[in-house]
């Protein structure tokens, strides 16, 4: 009996080549669309296991609690690549393996994806945190000025996206403070306008709740929203639109890299290359979870004219000029920003 058990265990262990045919990726929800991953799986005969996470802190905590080799690919906020590198979570990538020459120049983001002259990640998708609205319910001209939001005209008709970095960034822009200039001192000046915005709002919600509220008419405006909120609802709700107000908006960007300690770095890099290829980019841009602009401009050859219209492809040059990156706070400022956000939620 013992011999039979040993043989069985041995058989299970020798069957482990099946395990080596799996790639483990820590991702955002847009990567979980089967239409994105299936072509890669079929081409390479590999299973891609995807685990979603929200928020850099949660992602880094998962990596810290994992064993080397548990994860192969990481998707992370582009502005937080440095944090992941600092924690030793990302492996270096040979720059000549990446198609960044085809990217929108602003989306190469070398200052974020490179640390100490070495490349650790590549931008894969971007978009804007700005003002999304129902153009049949509000005056679109009002949306061009952030001051209108707290003027009383739209009280109780606003949802705030529950993510402190972009919304505090927008509030800062509304006060004439560039996102890179947010410090402990300037942060203090944002408290009053942030709380005024909360007072004018009906709710502070995550992506799904905010989308639901906008789609059902519960609110007419979403602060922090953009194409990533309205695009997936476009077919059912063509009245939803978004704009970058005169004070500016924020550009979000997500990067993808190979996890340090991956036991299959070559296959992980293949996945990164697939995601940043024109085909992978077009699929990622139109993911069923949320849409966003592809970093690789060549994806424009793959996307349909209708998809490009929804993404407002032709207006990107103007949008990119008027959008700033997320704030990149150090640990102390990050804590102060989160404390202010938590206090706002409790108001």
């Amino acid at each position, binding site marked *: 009996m013992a011999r039979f058990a040993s043989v069985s265990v041995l058989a299970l262990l020798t069957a482990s080549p099946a395990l080596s045919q799996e790639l483990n990726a820590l991702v955002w929800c847009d990567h979980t669309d089967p239409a994105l991953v299936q072509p890669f799986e079929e081409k390479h005969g590999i299973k891609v296991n995807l685990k979603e996470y929200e928020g850099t802190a949660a992602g880094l905590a998962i990596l810290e609690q994992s064993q080397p080799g548990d994860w192969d690919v990481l998707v992370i906020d582009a502005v937080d690549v440095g944090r992941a590198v600092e924690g030793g979570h990302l492996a270096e990538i040979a720059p000549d393996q990446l198609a960044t020459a085809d990217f929108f120049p602003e989306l190469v983001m070398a200052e974020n994806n490179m640390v100490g002259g070495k490349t650790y990640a590549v931008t894969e998708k971007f978009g804007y945190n700005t003002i999304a609205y129902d153009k049949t319910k509000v005056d679109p001209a009002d949306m061009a000025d952030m001051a209108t939001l707290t003027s009383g005209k739209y009280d109780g008709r606003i949802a705030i996206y529950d993510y402190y970095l972009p919304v505090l960034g927008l509030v800062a822009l509304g006060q004439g403070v560039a996102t890179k200039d947010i410090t402990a001192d300037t942060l203090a000046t944002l408290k009053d306008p942030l709380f005024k915005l909360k007072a004018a709002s009906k*709710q502070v919600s995550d992506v799904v*709740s905010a989308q639901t509220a906008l789609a059902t008419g519960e609110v007419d405006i979403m602060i922090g929203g953009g194409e990533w909120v309205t695009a997936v609802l476009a077919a059912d709700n063509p009245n939803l639109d978004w704009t970058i107000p005169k004070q500016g908006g924020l550009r979000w960007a997500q990067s993808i890299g190979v996890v340090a300690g991956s036991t299959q770095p070559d296959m992980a890099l293949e996945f990164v290359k697939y995601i940043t290829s024109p085909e992978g980019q077009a699929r990622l841009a139109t993911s069923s979870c949320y849409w966003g602009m592809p970093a690789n401009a060549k994806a424009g050859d793959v996307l349909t004219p209708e998809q490009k219209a929804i993404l407002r492809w032709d207006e990107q040059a103007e949008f990119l000029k008027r959008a700033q990156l997320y704030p990149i706070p150090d640990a102390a400022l*990050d804590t102060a920003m*989160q404390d202010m956000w938590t206090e706002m939620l409790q108001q």
Partner: protein
Amino acid sequence: MTLQTRDRRLGWGLVAPALVWTALFFVLPFLGMVALSFARMEERAVVPAFDPGNYTRILTDPVMLQALLNSLQITLIVTVISVLLAYPLAAIIAFRIPRQWQRLALLLAVLPFWTSYVVRSYSWLLVLGQNGVLNKTLGLVGLGPLEIAASRAATVTGFVHFFVMLLTLTIYANLIQLSPNYARAAADLGANRWQVFAHVILPLTLPGVVTGAFLTFVLGIGDYITPQILGGGNELTLPQLIMLQLGRSGNFPLASALSVVLMAVVTLAYFACAKWLRLDRV
């Protein structure tokens, strides 16, 4: 070896798996969480320490105290409303519906359990919204609209919907065990219907009510999903605060301290109800 010693050993042998399981998967993790609650955060990293700072912060920071207060208020409101709704429903099923239909009635009562908790919460958003089913119905009779979605009222509604089902089951289990002779004897002695209920039926079913209420309290005060989806981010409860520390700040020590406080509240609730708790009645 005496028979008594052998029985004792057999008893310990039978409970050993449960004890080991509890020690490995509850006691040890709990002790780990308590230890972590005294650690410190420095530059986004957890530093082992014996620092009561997290507890001091919880007890002095108005935002955290308010979260605790919100959790207690919401859970108490939900528990009271759920008991008031579940008791008559359970009584109707137990005393007014013929025995052969009671199973079907209970099945209908617990049908909402069959849907996902998250989906059910989002569904309530569609019901309670400004253009939702409730307001449209009220509009037909010239009333409303009510501003319920994204508020404490919405959170309470979502909770009550769930917990009325749970309480109905626990109270029904008690009511069905009551011999009708108690009520008959009281009536023979001159008690009216109200007196029969107040002095005979209610005291006898109190253990089931308290058990259900305690379960409602425990599940409600630790719930994150309902206030997160239905509350609209307009007030924070303790579980939401814990999730903010875990998912956003990566502040595991503070999250652990908040969780210990949550467990302390549940423990206090247990002692407050211990006199009446009869878990065998569930």
